[in-house]
């Protein structure tokens, strides 16, 4: 199925929260219905997206919204899909760990790097950075700290160039 068909099919049930623009390659979904939509994407006979390849977080650039892109593939049917969700700082996204095991670490990484919170994740803590790190480095307005636990964070390259 191509993305247009998938979008039309989803719109019959979730017309409120599914958004698809003609010239894009992804479907935008509102976080409120995400749990039901994701369950349908995984279990419905027309979709069967059993392989969640990647979850990428991104900064929308307006200092309000942060986004997550899910890349799915179905190993039985063979089609692919990209789904995007965008939330502001005080909202959270329902976690899909129960459906796809690979979401576990990817969601933790999105939290670690971009500060996106996932509701219902069993172990929502940082994964690559240490637990006491301040801020979320991949946000565009992130300032590199001067010191981390008394150790200077090298910013200028005078000593090693």
């Amino acid at each position: 199925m191509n993305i247009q068909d998938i979008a039309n099919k989803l719109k019959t049930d979730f017309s409120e929260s599914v958004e698809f623009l003609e010239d894009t390659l992804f479907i935008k979904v509102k976080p409120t219905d995400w749990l039901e939509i994701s369950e349908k994407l995984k279990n419905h006979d027309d979709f069967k997206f059993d392989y969640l390849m990647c979850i990428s977080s991104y900064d929308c650039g307006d200092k309000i919204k942060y986004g997550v892109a899910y890349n799915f593939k179905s190993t039985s049917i063979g089609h692919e899909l990209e789904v995007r969700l965008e939330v502001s700082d005080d909202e959270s996204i329902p976690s899909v760990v129960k459906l796809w095991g690979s979401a576990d670490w990817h969601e933790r990484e999105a939290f670690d790097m971009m500060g996106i919170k996932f509701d219902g994740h069993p172990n929502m803590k940082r994964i690559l950075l240490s637990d006491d790190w301040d801020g979320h480095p991949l946000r565009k307005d992130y300032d590199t700290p001067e010191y981390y636990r008394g150790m200077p964070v090298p910013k200028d390259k005078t000593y090693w160039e």
Partner: protein
Amino acid sequence: MSKQDKSIIKAEEMVLNMGPQHPSTHGVLRLKIHTDGEVVSKIEPIMGYLHRCFEKHCENLSYEQVVPFTDRCDYLASMHMNHAYSMSVEKMLDIELPERVEYIRVIVAELQRIASHLVACGVFGLDVGAITPFTWALRDRERILDLFEMLCGARLLYNYIWPGGLSHDLPPNFIQYTNEFLDYFEPMLKEFDNVLTENMIFVERTADVGIITPEVGVNFGVTGPTLRGSGISHDLRKDEPYSVYDKFDFDVPVGKGIMGTVGDCWDRYWVRMREIEESVKILRQAIAQLPDGDVHAARPKKVRPGKGEVYSRYESARGDVGFYIISDGKNIPYRLKMRSPAFCNLSVFSEISEGWMMSDVITILGSLDIVLGEIDR
């Protein structure tokens, strides 16, 4: 070895720390192992010791300057990282490459696959106590590194495959030396096979241990030889042929459970060994068909893709490498996310280790073939 039934005797839970400085964790990985006696109940991998903000760096570098950084991600298969990244940029720019570039890329990628799998198989043997095969594997890998040194001057971090082409054409005699290497290597691989694959002690330690069922494998996003060990024929070179892989005749080996159950550690090792043979097959065909041409013909003067995003996938030695790039029309990526195969392969670790003994944890971790540089990025 058999899986232990936890319900028989219950002792007090003990938390054991392994790593980050431990030879069997294949880098700086720390494992918090919850055990009951000697039986493992849960493992928490703790990583990030090698984190060097690859993705943050990329947001400040032009598309060409990112290539050397991809080298450092998977340092055992740098060519694959170069190739995967270059392919994703080319997909954004919509570049048609000269045939010769594609063939050279396939040749170096398959040589790299052999080198990487040799380390994986050799080190896996070392993990369970077989020292001799490890030295043999590294001896043969050294020859491939010599070939790469001849190609681009570097032994591990090549910066060879660039968006739109290559840094250099092949040096004179490279094809001849590669042929000589293949002639030398094939009997050596048989010897390696003889000493390790069906070795009684090795089979006892690895067969029936740490089984990944196909459903668990797909659900956790496990890819590469680790998934093919579970009997699923998922290989991007065959399923969605990129580059010129559709012109070669090769098989995708999958685990059959010859020594035990499908998807055990032995199967994953066996798939890697068979893949080395397939790589040799591809190399022989690619060398025979190598066309002439100018490798710099398609190099763009300026890499400046239009607005949009791309997710491209590549079959590296460890599995499915994905590059998700968002471009806002500048010459630097707005956001670059790398889907690391070893990261996803490691996430299944706790799931499959439950109920096994402490000594099997080392075996299972070795069979996943992780590279921490790529997990931590």
